[in-house]
């Protein structure tokens, strides 16, 4: 017998939670315990009194599993709301990356030129290196990082995605 694999869909979930200790472990652990996938996860508090955090999780799985993930998350007591942005419709996804590139001569000039094309900002520089700050959709960051790989990429740090519905209403 062989293990069967099933069709996968990518979904972006925005989750508001009570900002209490252990909540991140609870959510991350729910994913591992039930065999769900986390492609990226970001979290930061979003309320004036630091009571509420927003967690954005990018996951993938068969549609029925995505629905289960949604339901299982809602079952956790500190979870206020789960919004499946992919399900809800048009939304914006953005990510920030810091990209360090080292090199001299033509490579250095080319890196700077491409950074300009991608609207990446230089946030640190030596005579032999740059750190670029780039924001955008994940694909844009992927393609920028791919280009930098040929020009002396040293390291990359990415935040993971935050997402929000387009239009006047909240999710």
């Amino acid at each position, binding site marked *: 017998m062989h293990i069967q694999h099933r069709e996968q869909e990518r979904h972006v979930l925005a989750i508001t939670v009570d900002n209490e200790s*252990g909540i991140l472990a609870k959510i991350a*652990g*729910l994913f591992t315990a039930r065999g769900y996938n986390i492609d990226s996860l970001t979290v930061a508090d979003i309320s004036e009194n630091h009571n509420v955090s927003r967690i954005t999780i990018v996951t993938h799985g068969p549609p*029925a599993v995505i629905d*289960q993930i949604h*339901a*299982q998350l*809602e079952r*956790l*007591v500190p979870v206020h709301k789960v919004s499946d942005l992919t399900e809800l419709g048009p939304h914006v996804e953005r990510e920030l990356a810091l990209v360090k590139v080292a090199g001299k001569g033509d490579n250095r000039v080319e890196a700077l030129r491409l950074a300009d094309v991608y609207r990446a900002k230089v946030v640190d520089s030596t005579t032999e290196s740059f750190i670029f700050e780039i924001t955008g959709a994940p694909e844009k960051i992927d393609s920028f990082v791919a280009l930098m790989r040929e020009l002396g990429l040293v390291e990359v740090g990415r935040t993971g995605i935050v997402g929000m519905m387009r239009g006047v209403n909240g999710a």
Partner: protein
Amino acid sequence: MTERSGADILMDTLVEQGVEVVFGYPGGAVLPIYDALFKDNRIRHILVRHEAGAAHAAEGYARSTGKPGVVLVTSGPGATNAVTGIADAFMDSIPMVVLTGQVATAMIGTDAFQEADTIGITRHCTKHNYLVKDPADLAATINEAFKIATTGRPGPVVIDIPKDVQVASAPATQSEPRSRFNPPTTGAPEAIVEAVAMLAAAKAPVLYTGGGVINSGPEASELLRELQDLCGAPLTSTLMGLGAFPAQNKAWLGMLGMHGTYEANMAMNRSDLVVAIGARFDDRVTGRIEDFAPNAKKIHIDIDRSSINKTVQVDLPIIGDCTLVLRQMIDEWKSTGASAQNLAEWYARIDGWRARNSLAYPQSEEEIMPQLAIERLFELTRQYDPIITTEVGQHQMWAAQHFHFFSPNKWLTSGGLGTMGYGLPAAIGAQLGNPDALVIDVAGEASIQMNIQELGTASQYRLPVKIFILNNEYMGMVRQWQELTYESRYSNSYSDSLPDFVKLAEAYGWKGIVIDNLDDLDAGITAMIEHDGPVIVDCRVAKLANCLPMFRSGASHTDMILYGDEAPAAITVTAEQKASV
């Protein structure tokens, strides 16, 4: 302003919550709470012999009374020993609040003596858990914990309390109560309308009910009977749902699933409408998902939205409490003047399946067949309306098949987690909650040894629980699977070096009875009932009896092995079947 210690706040809050009994075991990190208990006679503490026993006793108490069970254990091993019972309560949706001691706040994370990450360990087997760092938060936390444990889909909640928080004091006025947990209660009205229309239109409906009906309270069982009476549909229950519907009713199909009756599984399979009420389409119920009730529309009533479409896709989900949804459906049925289809033909087909007599078993002149022992136990105890607990294995399934239940909260068994060692402590908890009831743990000789130390607890508190052991000298269900799937290679399933159960009973101040031939069966059971005190009955039954009917794990629910079929060993077993649990 007056101040109280954390331990005193804890006691007062438990009393305010109506807690009468706490099951526990002391230790270093809960000494301040035990000292508060010592001075306080409002709460009765039951000293168990092992923390697993405390958790299962709390489950038995909860399941038989409808009230939440409360557990008090120390840090480290106290908490980890309780984990099996917590996980069991989580799987079977049993309301429970577990108070665990923890090392002092400043010691957390230093690998202190008897330190364990209780919050981390119990995170995924509790409905919620807390580490309380300030006694001022204790009352609000405990109050919220009870609300979470008892409302919505019930379950266990752990409150981990460091020792310094038990000692430190806080003002008598407490932090604001929280009200963030508000599960749904009534079903969506349009869904109720649709459900009733579907039920009235069905030509071959089945009501499939589970533990949710029991958890929802006795009224849900009353309403279930009323709805069944209105719509006339035949009814089957899961292992956890037994007792919600009276077994003598002609609509009763018996339990469904792996060891359910042939008629229950066939009726599910051939039905045109399945109404699942507080049941969760467990794999032991469905068998192979692709073959499960393929032509039936499915309505799923459940308070937990995550149960919907988890394993079986349904046509109409209704999220709400069973009691309220059943009442909504009854009201809708009556107000629209709905009437059921003529189900005579459907019942005739069911009678055809019933005629297979799927609970039949081989008769013996010499040995006591375990099924017969359960039948006699049922007949001879029936007039006492007993509470039955079980361990896990063949004896559990035989009890589910051959003991019959007529009202809820009388049948306590570990369904989801399948925990051997559940039955004795659960019987102790049930006896405490129902002092006048006849409480019997139907056990196997292997399972009973898993929490055998709790004999002492029953002795100490003069609890007249009865243990009825079906002793076949095997972990019978393991042996049966080995016979059916592994060509009778009985790897480690023989119960060697068994204790003399009679001497063991006597050592603990219990009465011990051996039943080892057919002629003594009734007399032994009667002696057990009549003894005013705890009794172990060592009932020696046929060693190699199989629990039938059954469908194999991963097989279709119609593909049942019945007594009288060809020798099971001749059936080919595939790798897929070996891989299914």
